[in-house]
Structures are given as C-alpha cells and as structure tokens.
C-alpha cells in the first residue's frame, strides 16, 4: 500500500497509522479488504490442493505431508477428521471471507463513493470498524486449526447433530465454537458494511446522479447489501441457538439420538430447524455474490464492447426480482430432508423461476456484445469467461432445482461440480475481471496483460476440466464430502477420474500463482497509469486521478449529466462520453453547475 503514499500525502496530513492502518478513507479500507480477502483466498486454495491430493492419491503415504502437518497427517496420510476440517474451512473461508468480502467490502467499498461522485461513505468510522471486525473474524477462524480437536469439521453448512455434540467428530469440540464465533463476527462486519453501502448509495449521490444513472456495479453491491441485511441476522439467530445448544445444555436442534453407541437425551429439539435457518441465509448468499458479480461484469462488458449496455432498466428490474426471489427459494437445499412434497414443489417452481431474471441479464449482456467493437483485454476475457460459466452452471442447476431429480443427485459430486461452476468459479472470474479492470485506478499501475492472458486461459481450461467431470461422477453415484474413494468397493471406478480431476485441479490452483506474481510485480513495477481513464470508460471513478486523492475529487464534486454507458454516440467525436461531460450548449459556471 505504500506504493501510492506519495499521491495522497499532499492532500491530507495525518500520521501513518491513521492514514494506512486505522483509516476511515473508503479507498484505504477497501484496499485492506482486498488484501485480506485475497490472503484468505490463497489459504482456501491451499486447502483445496490438500483436498484434491487426498481424493486423488489418498491411499499413498507422503513424507512431505507428514512434515507439513505432523498432527493432521500422521504417517503421511491425511486423517479423516483432518480432511473434514479442511473441507469445512475451505468452504467457509472461500464463500464468506473471500468472495463475499471481496465483492462488497473490497470492490463495493472502493467503487460506490467514486461511482456516485461522493467524497466518502456515509459512516466512515463504521466502515473502518467493519473491516476490523472482519479481520478479527479471519484471525479467529484460522486460529481454530490450532485448538484441541482441530477446526470445525461439520461441513460449511454445520448441520446438527454433528455440529452440536462434541463427541460426534473431533472438530465439533472447541473448533466448532470458534467457527460460530468467527461467523458471528463476520455477520456483524457484513451488516455494518451493508448498511453503509445502502445509505451511501441512497443519500450521497452527487448532483445529477439519479438512481437510473447509477453504474451497474453500484446497483449490484446495493442489492447484495439489501439481501445481506434481510438474511444475515437470521443466520445470527440460528448461530446463537446453536451456541446455546453446544454450551448451555439447551436442545433447540438436538433430537434424542445415539452417537457412538451412547444415548444422547434431549428435550424436544429439531435438527431440521438449523437447516431452515442456515439456508435462509445460505441460498441468498449465492445472490449476495452473483448480483455484484453481474454488476461488475456489466460495467466491463459495456466498456470493452464500446456499446451502451443493452436493457439497463431491464437488468435493474431483474436485480430486484432476483433479490426478492432469492429469499424464498432456500427449501431446494432440503428436498431430501422429508420436506412436504407440496412445499418441495413450490420451492422447485420458485427456483426455476429465478432463472428468468438471471437469464434475462445474461441475454442483455450477450446483446451488448452483439456487433460491439470488442476489445479482448484480460478483464474482458474474464468477463466473457464469467458468462460462459454462468450458462454452464445454470444448466446443471435445472437438475438440482427440480425436486424429483435432486432426490437422486443430492449430496453427490454433481452438487459439488455444480456450485463450483455457478458460484465459486464464476464469481472468482468476476473478481479477477474486476481486479484487472480497476487495478490501474486503485494502485496507479497496470497489471501485465500477457501474464493476465496466460492466467485466464489456464484458469478457464482448469475450471472446466476440474468441475465438469464431477457432474458425471455425481450421476454415477460418487458421494460428496467422502474421505476417500479408495476405501469403497463401489467407488473404485471413480478413482482414475478423481486422479485426472486432481491433476487439472492442481494445475488450476498452480495457475493462480501467475496471478499472485502478476499482482505483486505490477504493484511495484507495473506500467504506470498516467491516463486516469485508460479504458476510456464513462463512469465517474475514471474521471479522477489514479489513484484518486483523499476525498476523491478536487475542489468540486463532479456533476452528472447522463447515464453511465453512452458509448459510440454518433454525434460525438470520441466513442465514449463520460457521465460528467456537460451537454453541448450548456454553459458551466465555476462550480460545475449550470
């Protein structure tokens, strides 16, 4: 972060700690979010490598593993309870600590004030607190690997009774409690951030920035924050009850069961209650990720197609419909839980229905590409890759959203392949696209295009080669979350598949090193972005210097005269028209107002 120190120094003078550590400047906070979230992504990726190693070659001992994890991999073979901890933390930190926080806390935080022409967030101190609570959540979550019994091992969905009863699995000891505390911190951080983004978008828009002139990125983060505000507190309620069940002897979730041959007596609990409370957040969470991702991709596609976005209003209406529908489809995760078949049918219908707004947006983006002057820059490649993944993943979703086929596919590798394509990979592509696109604005230097293109192609091929075969395995009966396919007679046929997937998976993870190298190399040595608007984009963040000064604008905040996507207008010489360019014939006085 020291890279742009000299750019900010002239604008305001405060101690180094106030400026870069406990800063209330949304740009610094966003940068902190971006670094922290990428760090969590690296850890999550390393855990993924362990998972792929175990599924591919789990029957062979490796001295290296024993040296790396003396407790988790005694004898060079990953222990089952360690494997369960790995998949739990892999899922949790990549969904929550990486993707959620990167999209809203990182890029959302950076872009909202710049794109609406504001000087900062509505509540800068709250913004800072949100980051520090998030950092605490990260630290607490990682510490759980060090406690007795290891990290939480009940899967990222932490279903009871596995997650309630300490004797159920080693990770359900202290590790599970720490998981819940970390999630509670993360929920608080998300709520503080989300509240801030909503208020800022509604209240701090500059003169002329009507809601229908907002860039899609800002809209995306706005709707994600709305969904977060509706659903995250419900998970908090569920987590409180789970903590009480674990530590104060209540039985909200615990039925009377035998665990390890021991009768565990309880008093009227209902394990399905957790599934409802969890998925009431868990499914909207997909849209907390998808809607900002769609917003960023919209900005990038319009800029590199040199065309106005097709159906701007339609896209926003689709966002609204997705926001509403996303909160009433959670039951499709519970088709096998004994849900009333009529309710399952309703959830099925609603789930299929949500593909209408989703498909509408994808079609709008395809129509934007249609006959555009497409520039295949790295961000554009990732944006197109995003569209490809969303379509592929959406097709798998049809089978899982339909209750009858889901009964067969539930808890198989099909599900794992599906959500890794539609959620994990597509959102990852959106995050990469956003990073390559806004890197010059955030750090004042470009990322390397040639490394970026290698990164794109390896990642694109890696994602398809890793996750599409999982669909096939799932159809053939390969269960998810299984410790080792080698140990079961009926899964022997999938061992070679697992190995091939592991090879591609490790290539995919290895390809991310290119990104890490590119990121840090460009941070210090990349080509300088002397032009504040190198992509010739229209939105406001490109109309201030790179990186923007403290308080974002010079003396006067910009004034907005038009929508964000006026590319290739026949009546202008350039093929773009920034939002703050006054129309011809309008006299602009000193303060930028007519």
């Amino acid at each position: 972060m020291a890279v742009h120190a000299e750019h900010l120094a002239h604008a305001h003078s405060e101690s180094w700690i106030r400026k870069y550590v406990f800063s209330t400047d949304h740009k610094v906070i966003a940068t902190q979010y971006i670094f922290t979230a990428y760090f969590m992504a690296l850890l999550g990726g390393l855990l993924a490598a362990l998972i792929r190693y175990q599924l591919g070659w789990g029957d062979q001992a490796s001295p290296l593993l024993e040296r790396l994890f003396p407790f988790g991999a005694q004898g060079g073979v990953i222990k089952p309870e360690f494997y369960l901890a790995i998949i739990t933390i892999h899922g949790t930190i990549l969904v929550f600590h990486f993707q959620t926080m990167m999209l809203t806390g990182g890029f959302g935080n950076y872009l909202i004030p710049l794109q609406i022409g504001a000087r900062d967030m509505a509540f800068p101190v709250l913004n800072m607190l949100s980051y520090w609570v998030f950092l605490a959540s990260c630290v607490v979550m990682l510490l759980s690997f060090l406690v007795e019994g290891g990290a939480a091992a009940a899967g990222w969905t932490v279903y009871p009774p596995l997650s309630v009863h300490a004797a159920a699995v080693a990770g359900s000891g202290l590790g599970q409690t720490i998981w819940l505390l970390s999630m509670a911190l993360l929920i608080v951080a998300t709520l503080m951030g989300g509240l801030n983004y909503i208020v800022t978008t509604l209240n701090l828009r500059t003169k002329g920035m009507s809601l229908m002139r907002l860039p899609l990125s800002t809209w995306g983060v706005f709707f994600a924050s709305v969904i977060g505000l509706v659903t995250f507190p419900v998970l908090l309620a569920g987590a409180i009850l789970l903590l009480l069940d674990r530590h104060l002897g209540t039985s909200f979730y615990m039925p009377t069961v035998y665990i390890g041959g021991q009768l565990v007596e309880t008093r009227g609990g209902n394990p399905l209650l957790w599934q409802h409370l969890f998925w009431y957040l868990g499914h909207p969470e997909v849209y907390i990720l998808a809607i900002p991702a769609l917003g960023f991709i919209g900005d990038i596609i319009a800029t590199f197609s040199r065309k106005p976005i097709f159906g701007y209003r339609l896209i926003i209406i689709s966002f609204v419909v997705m926001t509403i529908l996303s909160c009433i489809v959670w039951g499709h995760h519970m088709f096998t839980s004994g849900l009333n078949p009529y309710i399952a049918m309703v959830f099925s219908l609603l789930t299929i229905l949500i593909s209408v707004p989703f498909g509408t947006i994808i079609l709008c983006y395809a129509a934007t590409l249609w006959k555009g002057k497409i520039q295949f820059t790295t961000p554009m490649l990732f944006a197109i890759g995003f569209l490809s993944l969303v379509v592929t993943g959406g097709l798998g979703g049809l089978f899982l959203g339909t209750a009858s086929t889901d009964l067969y596919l539930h808890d198989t590798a099909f599900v794992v392949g599906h959500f890794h394509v539609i959620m994990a990979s597509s959102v990852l592509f959106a995050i990469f696209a956003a990073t390559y696109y806004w890197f010059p604005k955030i750090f004042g230097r470009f990322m390397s295009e040639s490394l970026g293109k290698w990164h794109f192609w390896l990642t694109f091929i890696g994602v398809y080669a890793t996750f599409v075969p999982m669909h096939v395995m799932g159809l053939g009966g390969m269960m998810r979350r299984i410790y080792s396919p080698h140990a079961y007679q009926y899964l022997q046929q999938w061992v070679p598949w697992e190995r091939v997937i592991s090879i591609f998976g490790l290539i995919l993870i290895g390809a991310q090193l290119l990104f890490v190298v590119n990121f840090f190399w460009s941070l210090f040595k990349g080509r300088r972005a002397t032009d504040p608007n190198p992509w010739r984009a229209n939105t406001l963040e490109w109309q201030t210097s790179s990186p923007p000064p403290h308080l974002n604008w010079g003396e006067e905040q910009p004034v907005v005269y038009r929508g964000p996507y006026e590319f290739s207008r026949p009546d202008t010489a350039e093929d773009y028209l920034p939002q703050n360019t006054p129309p011809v014939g309008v006299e602009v006085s000193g303060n930028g107002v007519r």
Partner: protein
Amino acid sequence: MASVKPLSKPREPIPPFGGDGFSRREQPAPAPSTPARWGVWLAIFAVAMLFAGLSSAYLVHLPQRSRFPLELPSILWANTLVLILSSFSCQWALRQARQGRALSTMQGLGLTLALGVLFLAGQVYAWQQLRDAGLHLQTHVFSSFFYVLTATHGVHLIVGVGILFGVWAVALLRQGTTLNPLAVELSAFYWHFLTLVWLWLFLLLNLKAI
C-alpha cells in the same frame, strides 16, 4: 416559475429520494440528517430480522407446546403495561423536543428511562419466579425459548436504555440549552420498536398451540 430547459434528454428522469439535482422545482438540499435516519432504520430492520429468525424457530416448535408445560409468570402482564407506558412517555418527550422545550424533554426521557429500568427489573423477577418453579434454561425447549427470547429482547433494551441515557446526559450537561431533536427522534424510534418486539414476543409466548 419558468421551467428549466431539458439538458441531454427530452425527458428528465423522475427524481427518487431527494432528486437528481436538476428537477423542475428548486428543491431544498437533502437534510444532513438523512443518512443518520436511514442508518438507524436499516439497523432496526436488521435487528427485526434477528427476532424474525428466533420467532420462526419458536413457531416451528409450537405444535409440541402442549407436551412441555410452561406457566408464564403473571408479572409479565405488569411488565408489558410498564413498557407500553414508557413508549408513551418517550413519544411525549419527542413532541416536547420538536417544540424546543428542552426541560420537559428531559423530564419525559427521564420517565422513560425509569420505566425501562423498571421493565428490566420485572423481567429479572419473572426469571426468578420461573427458576423457583424449577424451569431452567435446559429444562425443555420452551423454557429455553422463554429465556432466549426475553434475554435477547432484554439485551437490546439495555442498549436502548444506554442510548436514551446518553441523549438525556448530553442534554443535562448542556443544561437544556440545546437539544438535538433528531437524536431524540431516532432513539425514540428504536424504543418504540423494542416495545413492538416485546408485544410480539409476549403474544408468541402466550400461544398455546397453532
């Protein structure tokens, strides 16, 4: 008033939430208080969703209610009355604040604070009565719910007491010379919200079956 000529488009977008700055009538600039108001409303909404989550957990257990006997302490009715009265006094204080009467505002807030503390004491008394009747947190799922719902509401009410006390103390330090009606308004809004939540929870706890 002469209408302003359209700028880039023949049709101006309809200005939502304070306008786009170019509307036909000259609008007053948005009050600086607006973000604070939005912020508090959204925070209250998030808390409401927390209680919605807990309530839905309670409701799905409700069909088994008859198997788990739980007599609610009768003092809860008195507590409910106290909390409703506190909301009235809070609203009265807000009206005084809006009319610029600092002294009566402080009296109203003081009364609200006293009633709020009285409510909390009553809740603790109810807990003691339940405990003496042998109903503990672990006894069965409905006793658990009783403690969890009342405790969650109580914690939020303690926060509310803290906020009201802060407003009241600031007014006291300034000897009633200046009083920010917005601070009173927002804390009063939160207070009314907590009263409504309690009424809802009390209704839930009184439901015998669904």
